[in-house]
C-alpha cells in the first residue's frame, strides 16, 4: 500500500485515503480537434514500466488533487507536487535524474 505525501496539507497519506486519477499532464482536446488528437487524449494513455507522472486525489483528507512522480516498476516515489502545472517542475525532474540518470524527460 503506497504512501504519498499530499503537497497541500502535508499528510503522508496511505493509499486508502487517496483516489487514483491516472496519467498527469494531459492536454485536453475539445471541439475542433482532429480524430487523432481526440483519440490520443481520450484513449492512448501512457503506461510505462518506470518513471510515470500520475494524478491522485486526497479524497479522504483535504480533497485536493495532486500529482506524483513515481516508478511503476519499483514503486519508488520521486516526489509529489500541486496539480496546477502543465509540466513537471524542475526540482522533481532533478530528483528523478538523481536516481535515474538515463531517464529522459519528454
Amino acid at each position, binding site marked *: 500500500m503506497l504512501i504519498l505525501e499530499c503537497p497541500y496539507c502535508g499528510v503522508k497519506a496511505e493509499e486508502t485515503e487517496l483516489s487514483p486519477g491516472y496519467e498527469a499532464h494531459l492536454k*485536453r*482536446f475539445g471541439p475542433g*480537434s482532429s*480524430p487523432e488528437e481526440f483519440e490520443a487524449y481520450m484513449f492512448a494513455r501512457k503506461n510505462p514500466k518506470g518513471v510515470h507522472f500520475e*494524478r491522485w*486525489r486526497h479524497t479522504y483528507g483535504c480533497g485536493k488533487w495532486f500529482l506524483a512522480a513515481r516508478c511503476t516498476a519499483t514503486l*519508488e516515489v520521486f516526489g509529489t507536487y500541486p496539480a496546477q502545472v502543465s509540466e513537471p517542475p524542475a526540482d522533481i525532474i532533478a530528483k528523478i535524474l538523481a536516481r535515474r540518470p538515463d531517464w529522459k524527460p519528454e
Partner: protein
Amino acid sequence: MSTRLTRGGRLIDRTAAVEFSFNGKRMRGFHGDTLAAALLANDQMLVGRSFKYHRPRGIVASGPEEPNALVNLGSGARLEPNQRATTTELFDGLECTSQNHWPSLEFDVGVVNNHVSRFLPAGFYYKTFIHPRPFWKHVFEPIIRRSAGLGKAPTQPDPDRYEQAYAFCDVLVIGAGVAGLKVAKAAADAGQRVILLEQSPTLGGRAPVDQTEVDGQPVETWLSAMEADLAARDNVTIRTRTCGFGVYDHGYVLADERVADHTPGDGRPKHRLWRIRAGRIVSATGAIERPLSFAGNDIPGVMLASAVRDYVVNYAVSPGDRTVIVTNNDSAYQTALALKAAGLDVPAILDAREAADGALPQAARAAGIRVLTGKAIARVKGTKRVTGVAICAQAGEGAVQEEIACEAVAMSGGWSPVVHLFSHCGGKLLWDETISAFIPDPARPPLNHDGSAMVECVGAAAGDLDLTGTPVAIPPVWVMPQGAPIQLRSKMWLDYQNDVKVSDVELASREGYVSVEHTKRYTTLGMATDQGKLSNINGLSVLAETLGQEIPQVGTTTFRPPYTPVTIGALAGEARGEIFQPLRKTPMHAAHEKAGAYFEPVGLWRRPYCFPRPGETHEQAVHREVLNTRQNLGLLDASTLGKIIVKGPDAGKFLDMLYTGVMSTLPVGKCRYGLMCNEQGFLIDDGVVARIDEDTWLCHTTSGGADRIHAWMEDWLQCEWWDWQVYTANVTEQYAQVAVVGPNARKLLQVLGGMDVSKEALPFMHWADGTLAGLPARVYRISFSGELSYEIAVPASHGAAFWAACTQAGKALGAMPYGTEALHIMRAEKGFIMIGDETDGTVIPQDLGLDWAISKKKADYLGKRGQERTFLASPDRWKLVGFETLDGSVIPDGAYVIAEGVNANGQRNTQGRVTSTYYSPTLKRGIAMGLLKHGPARMGEVVEFNTVAGGTVKARVRDTVFYDKDGEKQNV
C-alpha cells in the same frame, strides 16, 4: 506406536493435564502441547486423508508447513476447518475431527481412487473436463463433489469478534529465533523503535532444540537473558502467536495475532490483525526442512527429521521405538542423537552421500548408531503406518539390499530458507549451489519509497543454515534412488495434500508443460493450503531434471501473501453486521421506520421503497401510492437528492462547460433542467439547477451521484481550469428535502402557512425562500411526476419536524407518503428518463431525444467533442421511444427487441432493448420506454420483445409520454 516419554519435554507442563477429543475419542495431553504433539502422544498417527486418492495421512511436520494434519476444530458456530494440528495449541475441552474422508477415517470409500490412480493422472481435471463433456457433468463431477473438499464450512455465524490495530516502528523483525533476537537487540541498542513478531508462543526458534549454546552460553540461559533484556525496554514490542504474513508496498506489513485461539470464548478478540508500517523490515524467518522423494514417503510415520526431534525434545513424544533416519545432510544426525538421548532406538542412518565425516556424523557413530553412506530407501513398508524400510544404493535403481523394521522414518532432504516475505514485493532470489536452495539476493531486494532496500533477510532465511559459523554443504538429492523406475516414482509424493507425485511432474513435462507456473496449475503442485512449503523446491527440481535444465533457469513460482492462511474474520475485523459499511439515513428515517416503510439501498442511503399497510403486498402499496398522489396528495422524502453549491465570479462559465445546456443565463429565482456528460460524450448525470444569486448556483444531482459529481467538478476546477474563480460545496446532507406532490399540494403549503406559493407568485420552474410551518424553507416548484409539485428544502435539523408537519396537516387533504417505486412509475408515465435506467455509460443525450437540453451555440462543453465522433453521430443508433404491449402486459425487464436472422454466434439479432418497464396503475396497463434502431421514425410499428419464458411479446412503438401529454396537471 507413538507415545509419551516419561521424562523431558521442554514446552509441556506435566502438572497441567488437558482433556480433548479427536473424532469423538477422548484423549489426554498436557498444557504446552500442540494438538499434533498430543495426538502423537496418544498414538494417533493417522490424522486425515489426501485430497485426490484419499490415502492415509499422518503428521509430517511440527510447524506451519504441515500439509497433512488439518482438522475441523471446534463445533457448532465455532467450527473451523483446515486448522493445522501442528500450530494449534492444546486447551482443555478441545474438540476436533479429521477431514476428507467418508464414511470414516479408518475406512474410506474414496480410497478406491488410489487403486485407479493410473486413471487419475496429472491434469486429470482438465482432460476430463474437455471430453466427453456429458460424462464429466453426469458421472465425475457429482462423485468428486461428494467425496472431495477439505474440511466443513461452519453453518452458523461466527460468535467470536476480531479486531484490527495499527502499529509503526523503525525496524520490524519477523521471526524471534536467535538471528531475529540479535537484530532486534542491536536495533534497540541504537535507539530505534522495534517490533518483534513471532508466530509461535515462544521465542528462540529452533535454537533450543538444535543448539547447545549461543555465544558461549547455554542456549536456555542465553535465551532467558535476551528475553528479559528486550522485555525491559520501552522501545521494543514483542508479539508472540503473531505471524507476519504479508509484505506490501512502502514498508506495509500485515500480521495475524492469534489472541484467543487457545482460550476460546474468554471474551478477548479471537484474532487481531496488525497493520504495520515499518521503516525497515528484517525477515528472520528461518528455513523449512525438505522431504526426500522415495517410494512410500507419504505413509504415516514418515516425518521430517527436524519435526521428530521437535516432538522428542519439546513435547517428550516418541514417534515410535525404532526410527530410521534418511538424509542428504548433517542436520538429521541431530535427530538420531536426540532419539538416542531419549532412550529410543535408531536402527540406521541412511545417508545418500558417499561420505559423512562431519562432527555430527562422528558423534552419531560414537553413540553406536549404524551409519550407512551412499544408501537410500527403496520403499517404505506399511499402509496406515510404517512397518519398515527396504534399503538400496542411492546410485542404483532400487534393488533391495536389506530390510529394516521400524515404526518411523525421519527424513531430511536439506533446508529451504523462508524467502517468502523477501519475495512478496519483488525481491529476487539466487540459487545457492552449496546448500541446494534459493536464497535472497541482497543486491536485488524489494525497494522502499526512497529506493532503499525494504526487506533484508538474516540467519537461516538468508541461507546461513548453521549459526555456529560452520559452512554447511547440502548436495542435491531430488529422487531416491537416483535411477528409480516409474513403479517407484509413481509412489514418491511431492505434494502430500494434493497428491502430486514425481511421476505427475514428469508426465506434465512430457506433455509439454515447460513453465513452472503452468506445471503448478496443471498438476496442482503447491496449490494446497500449505502453498507448497514442503513440495515446491522438490517439484521444480524434478521438473528441471526432466527438462534437462538448471534449476535457476526453471525458476520458482511466485510467492504471494499470505504466508500462512489467515481467517476471513481477521481480515474483516469489526466490519461486519451493522457496521459492515456506514449507512446513510435521512433526517426523516425514524418516521419512515415508524410508518412501516420497506427500505431499499440507493448507494449507501436507505430509502423507503414503499409504505405497505397491514395486509398489503409491496405491489399493492406502490399502486395505492401512485393513485393517491395523482388523485390527492403524496409526500416523498427527497433528501438524498444531491445538492452542490457552485459559487464564484466564474461559476456561470464553469457550469456552461459542465452542463450540455446554458446555465450562465439562468435568471436568479429560476430553475433549469441540465445534463452532464463525460468527455466521451456519454450522459452521466442530470438534475435541476437553481440560480440562487448573481454568483451562486445550486446544482441538484441524482441521489447516487452527489459525491461522484462533486469530485468531478473539483477535478476540472483543480486540474484543468485552476485559474477560474469557482468554489464548490457538497451540501447534500445539510438539507432535508420533501416533495409535496398532487392536486392538493398547494393547499397543503397554504395550510402550513408562511409564504405565497400561488401560481402567480411561484410559477413552474421557479423557487423562493420563505417560511413554512414556522420553519425556514426554500421552495422549488419543479415536478418529476407531472403533478402540481413543490420540493421544499429545510435545514437538516428541521427535517423530521417538517415531515411531521406535512404528514399531520396533510391528513385532511388525503396525504400519504410514497416511496421510490411510486416515484419511478410516475416519472415513467411522464416519459422522464432516469440515470442508470435509460443510461448505461454508452448512451448520449441525443439517443434519448434530449437535443433540446443541448446548446447548439456553445463552442465547448464536456462531452461535445466526444459526441461529434462518427459512431455517436450515426443515424442508425438506437433511440428512445415508448412501447405499449398489444395485450396490455408488462414487458420483462431487460428484454430485447428482436430482429430478423441470427448473428455469427447463432444468437437472435436485436434492434433495441427496453430500459424502463412498469405496470401503470394510472393507465391500468404495461408501459415501457426503450432504445430502438431508427426509433422515432417508426411510430405505430409493432415490434417483438423476447420474454424470460422463451416466447415473445408484441408492442407498438409510440412516444414516451403516456400521461397528461399537454402538462395540464402541473400547470395549475
